[in-house]
């Protein structure tokens, strides 16, 4: 199992996560084995406390499992040092958060180019890619604005641009439509679907939104820290 095939973007093997809540151990995940292929548009659903958050945290390297292993783009996350993991997230994972989480003191352009700055991409190339990405997400002409000067939908578009601009292996989206009205949510979802088809980038959503569930190619339901159902459409 040390070597995964190129098309297998994420492979988890026996992922278990135990938290100590007030000294009492709580099993958030109970041995999850899952493989996600490149280019999939996957939604992870389940009731609150089912382990969606914990699972996404672990596959993104933001948290470590109590037991089990995670392979992301062929690398074992638990074997990486802090810096290696930071660089790996920078190069391979794009994050879209429910509350957008843009840096308010940076302009739209600076927010989007931040990850490329970390990666040492030259200035001219950064600028070119930022402008192109903002155009792709329908935000032409807002590069010099700050996030507070944008609507919620626009901010989430910036967040999508930030997540995608460095062409990561996967995009992890936490309830990306939860703070948006249904029309804006639908527009964004359509845009992400389009980008998925166009770029072949892998999207993994954590969601309660029926609209997201409907558009997902694969629907994984978690219950009590276990995979309850795994449907492909």
């Amino acid at each position: 199992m040390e070597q995964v095939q190129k098309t297998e973007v994420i492979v988890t093997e026996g992922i278990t996560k135990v938290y100590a809540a007030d000294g009492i151990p709580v099993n958030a995940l109970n041995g999850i084995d899952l493989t996600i292929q490149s280019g999939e548009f996957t939604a992870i659903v389940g009731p609150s406390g089912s382990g969606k958050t914990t699972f996404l945290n672990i596959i993104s390297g933001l948290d470590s499992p109590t037991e089990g292993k995670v392979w992301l783009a062929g690398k074992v996350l638990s074997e990486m040092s802090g810096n290696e993991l930071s660089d790996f997230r920078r190069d391979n994972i794009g994050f879209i958060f429910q509350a957008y989480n843009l840096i308010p003191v940076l302009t739209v352009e600076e927010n989007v180019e931040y990850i490329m700055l970390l990666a040492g991409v030259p200035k001219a190339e950064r600028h070119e890619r930022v402008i192109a990405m903002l155009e792709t997400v329908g935000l032409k002409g807002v590069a010099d604005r700050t996030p507070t000067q944008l609507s919620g939908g626009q901010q989430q578009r910036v967040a999508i641009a930030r997540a995608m601009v460095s062409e990561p292996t996967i995009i992890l989206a936490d309830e990306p439509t939860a703070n948006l009205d249904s029309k804006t949510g639908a527009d964004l979802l359509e845009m992400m679907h389009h980008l998925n088809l166009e770029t072949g980038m892998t999207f993994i959503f954590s969601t309660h939104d029926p609209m997201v569930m409907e558009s997902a190619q694969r629907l994984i339901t978690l219950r009590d820290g276990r995979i309850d159902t795994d449907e492909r459409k």
Partner: protein
Amino acid sequence: MWLILIKLAWRNIFRNKRRTLIAATAIGIGLAALIFVDALMIGMSENMVRTATGSFLGDAQIHRAGFRDAQEVALTIQALDDVTEGLATEAIVEHFTQRVLAPSMITSPANVSAIALVGVNPQTEQFLSQIDDVITEGVYFEGDSSRDIVIGAKLAEILEIGLGDRVVVTVAQAESGDLSQEMFRISGIYHFAGEEMNSGMAFVRIEKAREMLAIGNAAHEIAIKFTSLAYSQDSTLPFWKTFSQHGNEALSWIELMSQLNAILEMTKVSKYIMGVILFGVVVFGIINTLFMSLYERMFEFGVLRAVGTRPFGMARVILFEAGALAIVSIGLGAILGFVLTAIFAHVGIDYTGIEMTGVTIQEFIRPVMTVEQFVIYPVWLFIFTIIAGLYPARYAAKMVPVDAMRRSF
């Protein structure tokens, strides 16, 4: 990469303008206080040294070795002609004057008092002491009467005498120890702020003093004024060795008034202690401010970590914020320190009449600004701020992204 982190830090500290302003003002007040105290201490030291050296002492003195301890009138300066010739050609010497000193008794019809009789050359003495400047009654050795004597106001009060009255001065002669008495007429009365000079000294012409002591053309003391006071603080100058030959000793005011020097050294130490205390308070203020800012933006820091910022990158953001806070604080502190010091340098602080280690302050103390105060202390403050920022920076670097974001997914 550095640029975006610096940009991030600079803009972050202005996110909560009120808090930044309060923190920067508090730190700035610390810096301003340090600048002011330093300027005040320099002003006070210069004032005291100027008073001590300018009143009577001189920047340096030459005596026969042992004279200062024994006060024995037979211990006159050796090879006096060579010494005076040497001083006359010494480039760093601006003025010098010979003195004759003798413990004596002064008697009036009403009272008697023990004094130090000082024989002076009025022409050269005026450059070394301020007696001629503080004459309140009569004159300072005008005319050519060898029986003129100038005394302090307090001594005049003790002896119950006034201008023109007669007194008798008794000394023991150098070789024989025989008593020698001379009658003098009060030609001048001076008033110094210092008690010792007011009540314990009397001045006569040097020729008369030599005659009374039967020491020929000898002298007990040569007071020297350098072209710059700084020479008196330079113990490496060949001057000290050159004029410490033939059994004589050349000493600067630092050695002559070792107590004053010790007090001045102590004020330097106390300034450093105060600096450490002030900067200590500042350090805790900075740590508090940075942590408040950090906790407020915990989620944001979690996001920065999540998207790939390395732990050291996070630490740099905090350190840059600390640096940005320091720069704002230094700007405020330097302006405040400058204004405060400039005001008091103009107005002055009235400590006149207060005596410390035998030196009575005679002028208003005016704080003295130096370039160092606006360079060294700000640099210290910047370094302290960065050091203070290390703790929150370490915290930010060790932050687990998922803990920072809490509800990340």
